[in-house]
């Protein structure tokens, strides 16, 4: 029985990893027809690095991701504090509004923002892409900061002010350090959501501005290209190293204590 259970997990892992493994393998394949193995090559990587479209798309993805994450973290933290200070009634109303984008499917969010930009007469492009990413990231930041605020001892800020701190000092010295883990995980979540997004970007970009997702989509629709295999390999390697690095410490301590599991950071 125990064997069977392990075999089952193994099979699921094979299902999840086999396509990726093949993709990586064939990114080193020196043959135009993907099917046959024509020997080892780094040709596709060289072509990838020389491809202006892909490189500029990568730049867009990264810069939009960072900017959107920073802006939505600021906005979301401010929003969470505002929500925290509201009275019960308005807070519930606001929370439902903030929750809406998460209930909606991505298509609806993308389409609705596209209509907004059209109505405002804004030419779609880099700015609209950034605004759209901020729009769908903020709710995630709010919802990751808010629980932290709720855990906060309300007397702490008062105590700070009693001891002569201005409200702003009280915020920087007392409240912010306490909610920092929430702010940080909100930032990471916003960053990953933005980098991974395709649907909303698809509807809200224009004037030739294209991120990596959109570029991959256009290329994949035209057919398979070994260059995309090379790109996938690089991305997978980065993700693998990053995630292992983040979790290594936790995993070392993990041992057999089950409690640790919850602390593994798996934004999903």
């Amino acid at each position, binding site marked *: 029985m125990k064997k069977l259970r392990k075999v089952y997990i193994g099979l699921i892992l094979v299902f999840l990893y086999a*396509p990726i493994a093949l*993709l990586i393998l064939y990114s080193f394949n020196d043959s135009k027809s993907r*099917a046959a193995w024509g020997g080892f090559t780094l040709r596709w990587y060289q072509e990838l690095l020389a491809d202006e479209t892909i490189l500029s798309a990568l730049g867009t993805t990264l810069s939009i991701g960072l900017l959107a994450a920073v802006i939505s973290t600021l*906005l979301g933290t401010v929003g969470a504090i505002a929500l925290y200070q509201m009275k019960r009634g308005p807070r519930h109303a606001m929370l439902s*509004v903030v929750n809406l984008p998460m209930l909606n499917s991505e298509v609806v969010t993308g389409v*609705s923002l596209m209509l907004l930009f059209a109505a405002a007469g804004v030419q779609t492009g880099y700015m609209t892409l950034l605004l759209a990413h901020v729009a769908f990231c903020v709710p995630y930041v709010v919802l990751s900061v808010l629980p932290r605020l709720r855990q906060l001892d309300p007397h702490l800020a008062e105590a700070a002010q009693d001891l002569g701190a201005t409200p702003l000092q009280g915020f920087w010295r007392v409240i912010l350090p306490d909610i920092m883990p929430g702010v940080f995980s909100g930032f990471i979540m916003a960053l990953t959501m933005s980098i991974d997004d395709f649907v909303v970007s698809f509807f809200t970009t224009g004037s030739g501005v294209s991120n990596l997702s959109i570029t*991959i989509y256009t290329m994949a629709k035209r057919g398979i290209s070994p260059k995309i295999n090379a790109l996938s390999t690089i991305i997978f390697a980065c993700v693998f190293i990053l995630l292992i690095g983040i979790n290594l410490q936790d995993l070392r301590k993990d041992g057999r204590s089950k409690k640790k599991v919850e602390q*593994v950071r798996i934004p999903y």
Partner: protein
Amino acid sequence: MRKNRALAVPFALWAFIFIVVPLLMIGWYGITVEESIPYTEVTMEDGSTAFELEDGTITLERPQKQTVVSLSNFKRMIEPTYLKLLLRSLKIAVITTLICLVLGYPVALILSGRDFKRPALWLMLLILPMWMNFLLRTYSWMSILENSGILNSWITALREQFPAFDAWLTNMGVGRKIIFLYNENAVILGMVYNYLSFMIMPIYTVIEKIDGSLLEAAADLGASPTKSFLRVTLPYSIPGVLEGVTMVFVPAVTTFVISQLMGGGKVPLIGDIIQNQFGKSSDWHFGSALSLLVMVVVLAFMGALNRIDREEEPQKEVRIL
């Protein structure tokens, strides 16, 4: 903390502009259509062209289209073509969700058991592929399954190597190239592959939190492992199952990417039609009406799940036997 309205106002304003207004816009576009005003061209005495409207007024400018409130978008939606698409989207999403549940529940259950010394590590391995761009994940299946793809080339190689295998396949009526892609099954495969982890995670989180002493008590009171699973683990895991179902069903019913890549445009879903209305067909009004439909479907689905959640909530007094 000092109450501070200076924060609430800008945030509320932001939420209004970027959340409420866009949704209202979808509503407005959904219940309106563009209509051209009927007119006839007339030549004036001085030879210039003017336009006569139906009520007899004459203008010098060509009449523009006008936006009028109409239910025709919704009428168009219940045409058999679109109804069929909606049903197919629902069918594919339901099948995908069920497959993910059947495959994913045991994974969550096994990982929360004692078979693995480091469940966190295994869980991370299960989640890791999700960190890759989902277009790349879908694309990896395309490169395996396409007509001149990896799987077909392996089968061809096998056929050349083993004539008996080749003869058997030919007997079965299998052609030289097997077409794996561009049908419903391929779309479902793509969805299951992309969304499986969304099912595993919430179920795992819930099962992991079940108080171990409950299971011990069940065993002490003579329940077989099967019985204690049915009476303890299963009821307690329902909230996780419901969350997993939502996280798989909602993207599955609205995707247009997987259906376009794995289905090659041959298996259009409701998401494809929406995307089309905002792209090639460029009928934003009909597209908005379809978006409203999708919103209603998703909300109705979640409402139904919420009810189950409330009914299935484990009783406070634990009745084990």
